[in-house]
């Protein structure tokens, strides 16, 4: 399978702190890769580097065109949900506004928020805003979709819906890379997990295997952080 994202020797220093010190991994087409790690381990920074939002890093990052869904969505506050999705196709891709609107509406429908097309971002619930943000990212048709903590603000039912949605996107040939704290979600939906600690990938593999038999100290620590949620589900 073809490689959509390849990261080699990624180092990033912010001030006196070395946030990433030699990250290596790759993501293949159709994968749903999960980046796990404790807070501050640099998960979000990796996504930002891939998205082109960080200027000063060392190493090689080769990625196809990416779309990104931020943890706090960052929908354009002054535009309706529909206009948020239409804006880039019209002004970046040069698609006619009628066609862009039809496609935007189609994406919103597909993500289950078609009925909220005319709402402003501040009128949307967290889950709705996330779906609009996914639609906005997909509107420019990126082969690689990055999602930062997509499960953070969702209740278990919504998480399940999101998991299905993401799986559907992967089935369409899209590649996904997301960060998460939630080992249940990762175990259920990711095709591969990468554990980030001390600025590098310390463990990776098939999610259920890694999460049930962690090999690295950092992975074990990570799984101890949220035992209550695991118990609640099992």
């Amino acid at each position, binding site marked *: 399978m073809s490689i959509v994202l390849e990261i080699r020797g990624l180092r990033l220093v912010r001030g006196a702190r070395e946030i990433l010190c030699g990250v290596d991994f790759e993501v293949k087409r159709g994968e749903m890769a999960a980046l796990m790690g404790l807070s501050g381990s640099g998960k979000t920074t990796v996504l930002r580097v891939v*998205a082109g939002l960080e200027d000063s890093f060392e190493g090689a990052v080769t990625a196809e065109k990416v779309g990104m869904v931020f943890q706090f969505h960052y929908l*354009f*506050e*002054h535009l309706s949900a*529909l206009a948020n999705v239409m804006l*880039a196709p019209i002004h*970046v891709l040069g698609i006619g506004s009628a066609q862009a609107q039809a496609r935007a509406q189609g994406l919103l429908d597909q993500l289950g928020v078609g009925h909220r097309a005319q*709402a402003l971002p501040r009128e949307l619930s967290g889950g709705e805003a996330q779906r609009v943000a996914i639609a906005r990212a997909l509107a420019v048709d990126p082969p690689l979709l990055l999602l930062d903590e997509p499960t953070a603000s969702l209740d278990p039912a919504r998480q399940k819906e999101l998991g299905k949605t993401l799986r559907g996107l992967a089935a369409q040939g899209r590649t996904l890379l997301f960060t998460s704290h939630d080992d249940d979600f990762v175990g259920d939906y990711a095709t591969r997990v990468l554990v980030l600690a001390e600025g590098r990938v310390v463990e990776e593999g098939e999610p259920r295997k890694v999460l049930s038999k962690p090999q690295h100290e950092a992975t074990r620590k990570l799984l101890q952080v949220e035992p209550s949620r695991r118990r609640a589900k099992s």
Partner: protein
Amino acid sequence: MEADPSDPSKLVGFDVEIAELIASELGRTPRFVQVAFASLDQSAIRGDFDIGLCGIEDTPQRRAAVAASVPYYEFREVLTVRSADRERFQSLADLHGRRVATLGGTIAYEILVKAGQEHEITAVSYDDDVHPYTDLLLGRVDAVLLDNVLADRSMRRNPGLYAHAEGLAHGHYVVITAPENTELRDQVDEILRRAMQDGRLESILRKWDIWTEDQTSHHARVLAAAGDPLAAGTAPAPTSVWKTTVTYFPSLLQAAVVTLLLSCLAMALAVLLGVVIATGRVYGGPLTRAFLTAYVELVRGTPVLLQLFVVYYGLAAVVRLPAFVAALLGLGLNYAAYESEIYRSALEAVSKGQLEASRILGFREWQVLRLIRGPQAFRLALAPMTNDFVALLKDSSLVSVLTVVELTKRTQIFAANIGSWVIPGALCAALYLLMSLPLGHLARRLEARWKAPTTS
């Protein structure tokens, strides 16, 4: 009177000497206070000074408002023109369709307003007696109508001017006191008459080179009419306040239109320039930023009045801007600095997340500004902008110093004419409110509309 060239803190002039004469006769030491020429009567009524004299004209309105002395000087209203126009412009009729300057609130101004209808002359009103003549030299006006004393002084200052000797009208200078202080006025009358009799007044007038043959007969008339000061001066003809109000109201409305037009155009300029400056300060290189910051600080750190003078008079050597254009530029350039600060902080208030989300979607920097950052910043800037527009509407009254007759200036003329600020002040305030209140309303409606979804 004017400042003493050898000691600018000292006032000199024939008025000063007459004041000193009166003071010494009264056994007092003169202390000079400066008040606005256009509101002399109001200052007298308020009690800002005991005795007012400084080329104060004898008019019926003035005699109705304050206590006025016997006239101590008879002047002629004369036309001053550029030396080259000496033959061409000899009378008001010769000045058909042209601009003629004078001091606001004077007999000369009234003459010009009347002549304006007859000869299509535009009367240009100034607040001081120096700039009418400098603007005459610059070609902003084609003649100045003021009394012979001021005209002679201007000829001494500006060699290129010529004052016609023939007077268009006669008038008199008087000393004024508060209306209830007729006792002091009577004392002043007595002192002035004595000074006329014993030649002390004549020697002062001769010293300052303003003695004319008219004075001989004038003094004789004043002395003959002893006990009846009015007989020697202009007879008062009381006019009804309401009648004056009705006469003035259309001109107040007209002036309000000037205020509104000027404010709207100046604001448009300020917004346009403000956007450019703010964009430059947010996106520009270090040199651009330094230059724009310097501009903003310079403009915000100096009085708008000074800036207006610089644009109108200071730049006159390079470019002679018409008064309205200078006012528009002065206000617009000034407010641009304030607007730019509003836009800059609004641009910076748009969250980083919005910008990053735009960049990942592939928008170019200018598209981010035009489609996302700009519109969001504009919504943030709307309230302070509305505020500024209302402030500008009121600050536009400052342009009267550039001879633009807007609402406040017109009100001042009106008030000077009827000798009261009550009705003019109320009308003026009502007109300003009529202009500013709808603005606030409009801004609130826009804000409300932006709360509703759009699909642009």
